[in-house]
């Protein structure tokens, strides 16, 4: 269990340490995605506590956007529920600030660029660093467009987490690896977020391709829906991201969300943390 002070650093350094520590302990990282404000921000806080208590390595906090072009139906629906609750970037920053009093697990924000652009990139970098956010993932801000935001985040110690896709060329992977801090997010297949029955055929080959170019940690996300799949992917990658499966559960369950999500991720923890 992560206690305050256990990871001294924040930002990109906290993310990098999380991957190093897990590797040293002979395991792979579990990254869990949840939608902030689904069903409400108070519950999101409790879910984060619950995930932290079962030793999830990184928490990805999705922020709702009206037009989520990289997301499948499950996360789209969660975003709509969250927007109806009035969730915003500033409210979510406040939540993280409160949570940081009790938990140390690295937190990254994942949402679309317009929310940051509108909030002001520099203002966000400052406020996010103060609140204790460690990095951001922006699915619609690729390498060519990310320099300004990356530099502002770096100035405040935060990681801009780049995505690599199955279609990325080696030249692009090299350019991304040169700029990457924290970890690299490999999108497991061409498509949008959502659970899939099978793993993409070229996944192992592509993760190996990234590893041959850089020694920065690689977490694999998009479409992973069982501990077995997670375990299989972890034999190639440094971490696995679970998203839609948890978000679907939160949307469907009437039980206490923090209890049900913590219970849900346990088999993934078992599959990954012993997967050297």
């Amino acid at each position, binding site marked *: 269990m992560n206690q305050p002070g256990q990871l001294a650093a924040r930002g990109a350094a906290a993310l990098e340490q999380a991957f190093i520590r897990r590797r040293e302990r002979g395991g792979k990282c579990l990254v869990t995605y949840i939608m902030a404000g689904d069903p409400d921000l108070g519950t999101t806080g409790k879910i984060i506590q619950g995930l932290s208590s079962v030793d999830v390595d990184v928490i990805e906090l999705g922020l709702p956007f009206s037009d989520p072009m990289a997301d*499948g139906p499950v996360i789209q629906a969660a975003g709509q529920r969250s927007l109806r609750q009035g969730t915003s970037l500033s409210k979510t920053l406040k939540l993280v600030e409160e949570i940081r009093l009790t938990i140390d697990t690295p937190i990254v924000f994942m949402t679309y660029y317009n929310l940051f652009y509108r909030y002001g990139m520099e203002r966000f970098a400052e406020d996010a660093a103060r609140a204790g956010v460690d990095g951001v993932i922006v699915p*619609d801000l690729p390498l060519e467009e990310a320099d300004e935001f990356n530099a502002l985040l770096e100035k405040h110690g935060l990681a801009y987490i780049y995505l690599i*896709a199955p279609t990325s060329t080696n030249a692009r992977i090299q350019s991304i690896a040169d700029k990457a801090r924290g970890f690299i997010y490999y999108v497991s297949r061409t498509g949008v977020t959502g659970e899939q029955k099978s793993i993409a055929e070229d996944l192992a080959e592509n993760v190996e391709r990234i590893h041959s170019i850089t020694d920065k940690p690689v977490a694999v996300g998009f479409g992973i829906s069982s501990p077995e799949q997670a375990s299989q992917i972890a034999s190639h990658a440094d971490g696995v991201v679970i998203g839609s499966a948890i978000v679907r559960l939160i949307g469907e369950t009437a039980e206490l969300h923090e209890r049900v999500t913590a219970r849900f991720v346990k088999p993934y923890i078992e599959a990954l943390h012993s997967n050297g």
Partner: protein
Amino acid sequence: MAVTPPAALAPALPDSQGRFGVYGGRFIPETLMPAVDELEKAMDEALADDSFRAEVDAYLKDYVGRPTSLYFAERMTQDLGGAKIYFKREDLAHTGAHKINNTIGQALLARRMGKKRVIAETGAGQHGVATATACALLGLECIVYMGEEDTERQKLNVYRMKLMGAKVVPVTSGTRTLKDAMNEAIRDWVTNVRTTHYIIGTVSGPHPFPKMVREFQSVIGRESRIQMMDREGRLPGVCVACVGGGSNSMGLFNGFIQDENVRLIGVEAAGKGVETNEHCASLTKGEPGVLHGALTYLIQDRDGQIAPVHSISAGLDYPGVGPEHCYLKDTGRAEYVSITDDEALDSFTYMSRMEGIIPALETAHAVAHVRKIAPDMSPDQIILVCLSGRGDKDVEAAARYLKEVFE
């Protein structure tokens, strides 16, 4: 008539990053980046290839029926009592709107790139019909995403697309209109990017789409310029066109953009009024932001969430606008005004009675603005209007609306 542009007149923008000033760019998932790189390269090669240009020109001539005519609207001119009014008759192009200029070009490019599957988004259905048409012509598979609300507003066009072998997918997410159709098309593209070309219907989206669509639509401005010189021996004082995403206006403006004395006016949809929350006048009331791959003026709230928009015209019902229009607005080269639903409907009937031409509701916005400015101009001045599409598709919706007004 030569359709290919002289290289010397090719505009310098966008820059190598796809920017028109600060606007434009490529704000898309990494998965799509290699595809837009490939597309940009293929587009540049094709546009520099005389045989490709000849192929496009041949289809535009024999299949689309270009050049479309330049028509002097004598009765309207007399009635308004001011400037001489000319219409560039894009409504006479095959399928009844300017959209075909772009879809023929892009479908030929898709075929040249070896892509056998084509997707498109559509609002009013005119771009969907034009895409279905080009795909039928070239034997390409065609899937069109259309907001569920628009499939109801534009039933005729849904049937036309199906008739030509396209699959029409009603989009039920979000506001069930054009922007949601575009979200869904992008989701399809990101999934099937290796086999699929996405024919975006307007001068919007990630680079190189704003440039590519402008190149294919600029035939409107090139022809108009030549026809105007032939007819009047001089250029128009004012060019007017409606702006949703802005492809017919960009096509027209591009022919006159270097003529500093020609005023360029884009007409947006003010819906129930720009002072209400029910309009889609992005340039008039929006603020810069990023949607669907480009930095552009958007109708959005304080947090950056895209706001619901409204127009009686499904083709203008979109919260963004092409990035080059943002640049033309900021630099002052073009002016942008807006017209309400009621004003557009009034001009829909006015144009029908005055000239025997039923304009598309989109086009009726441009006509409405001409009625405002023509009377104050002198008879030796010329207004050139892009008659972007015919209004057959809107007759049912307009009749329903007008009945409420008249009863």
